[in-house]
């Protein structure tokens, strides 16, 4: 029964579900490495195309999530090697790099989890909340936040870590439990 579930991503419909489930998280994940939103999307799209091409070659007991993250990591590292060259090239192709920084993604509908997070953020100590929002809402870098508030980068780091830690504790009930859903029962 579980095995048939594991194979759903070999069909187009199942693959679409898999894609939509993991796309954003994987993009967020490689962003930490490549530090460029467009490049992150390129990497993950490429990853899924490759995954689709090889879908019939995977062993039945593969942990998809672990596979995707590992592959994303490798491809991102590979991407970083090409990145300098590509970056040069992009300078010519992009009219203004700063546009990418100015542009802001579409505010999506607010999910239940987002509401809970917003409430938890509101309850953070004022300074910590301010720092967290400067990073998440205004998209400022640690250095910029530090300069703006006249504090050290280390303080920004600590405050960000503490904010994240608080959210993790407060919202533990709303976060996915430990399941690597697809491979459970197969191992």
């Amino acid at each position: 029964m579980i095995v048939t579930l594991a194979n759903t991503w070999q069909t187009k419909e199942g693959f679409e579900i898999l894609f939509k489930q993991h796309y954003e998280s994987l993009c967020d994940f490689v962003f930490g490495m490549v530090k460029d939103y467009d490049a992150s999307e390129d990497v993950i799209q490429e990853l899924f195309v490759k995954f689709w091409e090889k879908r019939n070659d995977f062993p039945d007991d593969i942990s998809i999530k672990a596979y995707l993250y590992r592959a994303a990591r490798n491809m991102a590292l590979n991407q970083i090697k090409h990145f300098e060259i590509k970056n040069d090239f992009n300078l010519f192709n992009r009219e203004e790099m700063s546009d990418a920084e100015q542009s802001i993604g579409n505010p999506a509908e607010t999910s239940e989890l987002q509401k809970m997070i917003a409430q938890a953020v509101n309850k953070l100590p004022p300074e910590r909340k301010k720092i967290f929002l400067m990073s998440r809402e205004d998209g400022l870098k640690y250095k910029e936040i530090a300069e703006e508030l006249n504090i050290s980068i280390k303080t920004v780091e600590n405050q960000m870590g503490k904010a994240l830690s608080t959210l993790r504790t407060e919202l533990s009930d709303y976060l996915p439990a430990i399941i690597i859903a697809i491979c459970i029962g197969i191992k």
Partner: protein
Amino acid sequence: MSDQYPHIDENAIAKYLSGEANATEINELMDWMESSDENLEEFIRYEKLWSESSVHKHFNVQKAWSKVNLRISKKKRRFNPYYLSATAAAAAFIIIVIFVQFFNTKPTISSPQFAIASTNSALNSTLPDGSFVLLSKHSKIEYAFDSQKQIRLAKLSGKAFFSVKRDTKHRFIVETNRGGVEVLGTKFSINETKNKDVKVYVLSGRVKVFLVRAPKDTLSLIITNGEKALIMASNDTIIKQAQKASAFYTINKTYTINKTITFRNMYLPAVMAKLEKCYSVNIKIDDSVDKKLRFSSSFKDNSLNEILTVITQTLNLDYTKKGDTYYITNENDE
């Protein structure tokens, strides 16, 4: 968080997710993540919190899916566009930016195979050899393949951006009235300043800079990565200088590289500023108009009027043109 990985805590994760982690920190986090499924799951939970804690969505799943769906629906792909874009930069093209002031004397090639001239707006085109060229306003280029010398020769007045197709058998030479550039390597730009000095910037690769009046190769200079050559108008000499990396950047900022204009949820003033730059016009936004309005769309080869119509209708605004200036107003102002 884990005895084995003392450096991995919320700070490290927050740092990584915000793109602030350095290579060592990234590696440590990766090792931690891969050491167990629990760690991976824990990371994914933080990541979820992180992405949901911002209202700004950087990634559009639906759009990405249509792209990927298109790619996997094609039976056999000829090449891998992801890697191509990287290698293209290294191998397939040579990129040149040239600024040369308009001289009274017209550049002429006895029988140009191809000539384009721009008037009040930028113009892009492909040369017969496949090279891409974008002419800034009031510029002109003539191109011919010299079958005797087996060279590709372009003569330029004004400013131009080139993306030169690689062809090692047939050299590509750009001539201006004062000096010229022969493409030997990968990427460079030429820039002529107001006092008619010509500046050549090399980003990577090699180019040869020569003086037009001097016999070729007697007065020339090869410059490479990170260097800048200056052809002095006053005494026809070439000087080599170290180049600031930012030089390229500034040059390109003033350009529309192609006529595809994309706005990704930009604020109205930023949208208009971009249009002003691309179409060389003045656009004034009325004080009564909400500056927080945002706009997203992409236009390819549309006229300014078309673009303004779409934007204003979308945002319930209006626009009028008086002289060279466009005025953006609220709709009910009419």
